[in-house]
């Protein structure tokens, strides 16, 4: 499967990473190289093999539905880029 420049732009958008036009060629080549490595898997017949979901074949544990977390708002917001009155600020989303 070859990756076109358009594909790289689309992937970068899905990943929410800004990419400059001059970076596209290098990314196309590098990502293409990685996918080429990954495609070695195609040589292996995996028909009927159960995908491995967990190394120990262990179900996810359940816990009682009770509140265990305390309020850490001030500590958490101390490392935030922009807060006001206890709220995280971002650019206007709804016009």
């Amino acid at each position: 499967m070859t990756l076109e420049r358009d594909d790289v732009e689309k992937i970068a958008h899905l990943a929410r990473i800004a990419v400059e036009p001059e970076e596209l060629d290098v990314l196309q080549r590098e990502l293409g190289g990685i996918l080429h490595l990954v495609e070695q898997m195609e040589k292996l017949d995996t028909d009927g093999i159960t995908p491995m979901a967990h190394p120990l074949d262990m179900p996810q544990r359940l816990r009682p539905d009770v509140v265990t977390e305390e309020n850490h708002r001030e500590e958490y917001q101390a490392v935030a880029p922009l807060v006001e009155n206890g709220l995280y600020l971002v650019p206007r989303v709804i016009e």
Partner: protein
Amino acid sequence: MDELHRKSIAELSAGLAEKAFSSVELTRHFLARIRDLDSGLNSVITVAEKEALLQAGAADERIQKGEAGPLTGIPLLHKDIFCTKGVRTSCGSFMLDNFISPYDATVVERLAAAGMVMLGKTNMDEFAMGSSNETSHYGPVKNPWDTERVPGGSSGGSAAAVAARLAPAATGTDTGGSIRQPAALCGITGLKPTYGRVSRYGMIAFASSLDQAGPMARSADDCAWLLSAMAGFDERDSTSVERPVDDYPGALEQPVKGLRIGVVKEFFETGLDKDVAASMEQAMEELKRFGAELVEVSLPHSEYSVAAYYVVAPAECSSNLARFDGVRFGHRCEDPKDLEDLYKRSRAEGFGAEVKRRIMIGTYALSAGYYDAYYLKAQQVRQIIAQDFRDAFAQADVLLGPASPDVAFRLGEKASDPVSMYLSDIYTIAVNLAGLPALSMPAPRVKGLPVGLQLIGNYFDEGRLLGVAHQLQKATDWHLQTPEAFS
């Protein structure tokens, strides 16, 4: 006092108990070594001098009151992937250059509760993605055996610091070989435990189904004490295993005689440097001398492990690293014009090239229409690889092979070719895919540089791995050799 950095953890512990020196003195000794010697290595990102001396003072009080454990007062370094309350946790990334965690990782909490003293945080590949430590925002780490060479990665700072005796021990994490490969290239002992044995809480997530924390130190003996304190169930990590922790120090003296050691055929075929192969032979001769039975085993599908890994790890990383969006913490771009611009530029500026590549590969693999061809296929390959190991463990108690195909490569040698860098983890990745424990310990050096002997165990067989390594280390001095400038 001058020789404190040449002592094992057990020796340091005995010295503290006998009051031959205090934890404050010991801590000052290592802080001075970091100050004097790390400028040429760049193994430490943040030195926590003030916090370390406070912890050392508290440890001395515990020792005074007779409340000390075997690790009380012993200094260590944490890989900068572990959240430490009040001390910056960068994960080797500009994204988290300004991040001070509001809480401690479970590993940090447990080792602190055991009385260990945190000297600081070690350099690493950005978000643990790399095999040479060259992807760090804080610059590459140099290998103390030859400063023109890489220390390996991603736990390269931890490995270099322990090899240079800047700390008696360090923590590491291993997603595809990130404890074992740098341990091999720097000539120390490092253990990746069974998946789920050590809590991942507060350890910045890269690939959640593969990530595992473990100890890095001079010897298997030291690692056994560290793992005892690190391991155990943690309800804050949903994949933590509810199972009692074995007595690792107690397992060190198990005899090697009669043990079936499986030599992994594929790990000695194409690509292995012939001098590294000769070093492996010497280690195997030693094991035979102890009465171990060496048998050949095969992992016929191990050649597919790198391919499967570069789907599973990027896919999980693209999901885990979606949290770095410039809103709640981490880097935010200047003057975002709208929310999408804020996300895109914050992430473009905050992440380095390797992290972006992996996020994009993972995004692609998980995008509509490609899931079956990539992620599902990789999880099936993973099952086949795990079955190879089950078959091998029917014939052998422990598996053996090199940890890395060659000695440390030169800085810059593989930096421009991602795929050639990925292939340097060819002997370590299969273990992560299967979730098994494995360690790397020093074998005889070649060309003056360290070589890592890898021992792979069955699930939860860490004690046996440490025992085999300890018996070898009792009879040899491979693990005691130190680079001259740091001896």
